[in-house]
């Protein structure tokens, strides 16, 4: 007869071993390691972390990765998408906290991660595939990010509109800011809602704000940009009072109700359902492609809100490696020779003519690669002519505003939330300015 007190040494050892094995398993589970980054058979599997956005970008990523996997004998790329609506900077930080970096990462807040040694240099064999002005080294001479689209700055931050409605009501695309306000008034006088915008996520609040603030930002373009001037005390958040007043006035008078809880992607539906005549967007051609998928009959166009003099001010930062977003290789992947080689192989394909043609076919403007002449451009998307016309517009003025403050993303997020708070009527414009200035000052002081 066996019981707990007469159990043999052998069985006790077995039990103790089982307990130890269980705990080791648990510990192994907790440790995470490099996740899917592993060699399976002859192929090395790596992950590609990216922010899901509009349907066009999601399709582009999926098709490029699928095509790469089919032609590669050595590497399999697995997609690691972060859901739309999530705060990508927060999600990226969470990835870092788990110590489980994918090999290829769609980066934000690059400077912070470069300083922390989380990114590996992108090798020459990748950068050689890009036009020289499409990338640039960081302060240490290394290139850490390479672009995932053409260098058109924020040209994709548009107002998308219902062309049929414009034709029926004899409306014109505005040539000045005053024209834009007149346009809003005319649509409102027709009994329709002029504009749909979104703030369920924080970042789409830029879509209406940035074109309004662009004239002020553009003034500081030659002096290192507005935010660097503000950090140095040569500019102040109060300088943005006029565009903040314009923003508040537009929100109060012309925007579709419910914007506070409307997600960015829903503005497409609101436009197509004719619940609003225009909608804000930051996806450029991608948004036109999405509209076409939802309703092929819908005649969409786009424009950018001009300033009082008719200039179209668009942000286009120089491609300094410190601040530019883009695709990067993680340091964690670089520690493993096979993973690094696979990441380089994938990026090499990403900047091939084949991949560029896939992107263009899906409605994405491919990065500026050396083989651009061989790329077949897609001008079949309804409304695409408006986008390409913007590039030729004589009133187009590129400006720079690339903050060098490593904690600028904190200030930016705070500013976005504070603006939404102000737009919603919870605070006044002066209170918002004071709060954001205090936050900027605190971050500058913290950065030393």
């Amino acid at each position: 007869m066996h019981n707990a007190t007469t159990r043999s040494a052998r069985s006790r050892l077995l039990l103790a071993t089982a307990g130890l094995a269980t705990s080791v398993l648990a510990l192994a589970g907790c440790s995470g390691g490099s996740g899917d980054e592993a060699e399976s058979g002859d192929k090395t599997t790596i992950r590609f972390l990216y922010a899901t956005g509009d349907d066009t970008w999601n399709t582009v990523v999926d098709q490029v990765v699928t095509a790469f996997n089919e032609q590669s004998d050595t590497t399999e790329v697995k997609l690691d998408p972060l859901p739309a609506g999530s705060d990508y900077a927060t999600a990226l930080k969470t990835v870092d906290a788990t110590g489980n970096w994918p090999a290829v990462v769609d980066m934000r807040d690059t400077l912070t991660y470069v300083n922390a040694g989380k990114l590996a240099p992108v090798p020459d064999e990748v950068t050689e595939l890009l036009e020289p002005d499409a990338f640039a080294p960081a302060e240490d001479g290394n290139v850490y990010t390479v672009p995932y689209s053409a260098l058109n700055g924020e040209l994709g931050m548009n107002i998308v509109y219902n062309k049929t409605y414009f034709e029926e009501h004899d409306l014109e695309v505005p040539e000045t800011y005053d024209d834009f306000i007149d346009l809003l008034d005319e649509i409102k006088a027709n009994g329709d809602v002029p504009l749909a915008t979104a703030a369920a996520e924080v970042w789409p609040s830029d879509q209406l704000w940035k074109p309004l603030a662009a004239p002020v930002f553009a003034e500081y373009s030659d002096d290192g940009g507005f935010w660097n001037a503000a950090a140095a005390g040569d500019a102040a958040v109060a300088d943005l009072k006029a565009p903040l007043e314009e923003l508040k006035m537009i929100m109060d008078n012309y925007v579709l109700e419910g914007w506070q809880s409307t997600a960015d992607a829903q503005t497409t539906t609101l436009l197509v359902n004719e619940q609003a005549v225009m909608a804000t967007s930051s996806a450029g051609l991608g948004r036109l492609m999405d509209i076409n998928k939802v309703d092929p009959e819908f005649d969409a166009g786009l424009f950018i809100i001009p300033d009082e003099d008719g200039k179209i001010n668009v942000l286009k930062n120089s491609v300094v490696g410190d601040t530019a977003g883009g695709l990067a290789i993680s340091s964690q992947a670089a520690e493993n020779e096979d993973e690094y080689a696979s990441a380089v192989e994938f990026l090499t394909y990403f900047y091939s003519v084949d991949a560029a043609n896939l992107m263009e076919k899906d409605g994405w403007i491919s990065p500026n690669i050396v083989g651009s002449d061989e790329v077949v451009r897609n001008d079949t998307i309804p409304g695409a002519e408006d986008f390409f016309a913007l590039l030729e517009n004589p009133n187009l003025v590129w400006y720079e505003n690339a903050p060098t403050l490593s904690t600028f993303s904190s200030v930016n997020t705070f500013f976005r939330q504070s603006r939404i708070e102000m737009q919603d009527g919870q605070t006044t414009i002066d209170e918002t300015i004071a709060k954001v200035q205090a936050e900027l000052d605190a971050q500058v002081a913290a950065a030393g």
Partner: protein
Amino acid sequence: MSAITEVRVRPRFSRGRLAMLGFVVPALAIYLLMVIVPSLQTVQLSLTDWDGISDDYAYVGIQNYEDIVASGRFWNAVRNTLVLGLGSALIINVISLVVALMLDKLNHAQGFFRTAVYLPALVSAFIMATIWKYLLNFNFGSVNTVLRDMGLPEWARDWLGDSSIVIWVILFITCFTLGGNTTLIYLANLQSVPQELIEAARIDGASGAKVFWNVTWPMIAGAVTVNMTLAMIAGWVIFDQVLVLTSGGPGFVSETMAFFIYKVGFGEYRAGFGSAAAVVLFIVVIVSTVAANAYMRKREIQA
């Protein structure tokens, strides 16, 4: 003599006990490594300017705590946390007790109704919040669509975007999700109340209400303490619902302390500041829970 032999045969750390200890130690080690040590490290980090990513950081004394006290955003998060913590604890307990009393009186299909009451608790807060987010969408949600179809368009609201009501909407959704366990605990306690006490009270002429207040209520005092404590703790650390439903917005208006900690620590690269906020949250949870427990325990003794 035999007693001495017994001591020798059963040393304090017998092989059996060592084997049992062998099972406990790994779990204890994991718990210490994964929970206790990081928790203690939070106190250390709260005194630094760590960004959460870099290897280096500097000690800044109590600067983070001073910033927290001076932050209107933080106090708004504290207010929301108190509303959700205390509000959900009170509402959930009242509703759960009423539902448990009704279930206790049921003679038929008790199993079915118990299951129906408990089902929402089986769905994760994240999923439940996502479903509610779709239902409450201003332009496309079922709630507003039904109201408009019923000829009540003025009742349609931006439930998750109206800053004057959003925290109460989150409170409603939280209560909807968390009530199942509370109801079951009350039901189990109600069914353990000695029937002879209730019958004796009735024979003495006590009305239904008097029986409840003088017999049933004191007998379930322990369950009230447990349920209030659990509900308050769940309320203090509400995170999923806020993340999914509003991301703390519009603006900062629906941020809770747990969400605030996550946002500044992870999204704004201020791990030191976030750690200080976490320490403050810990103190709030401990103080409020201990105080509430002390009050409720006292009531139990009196009962």
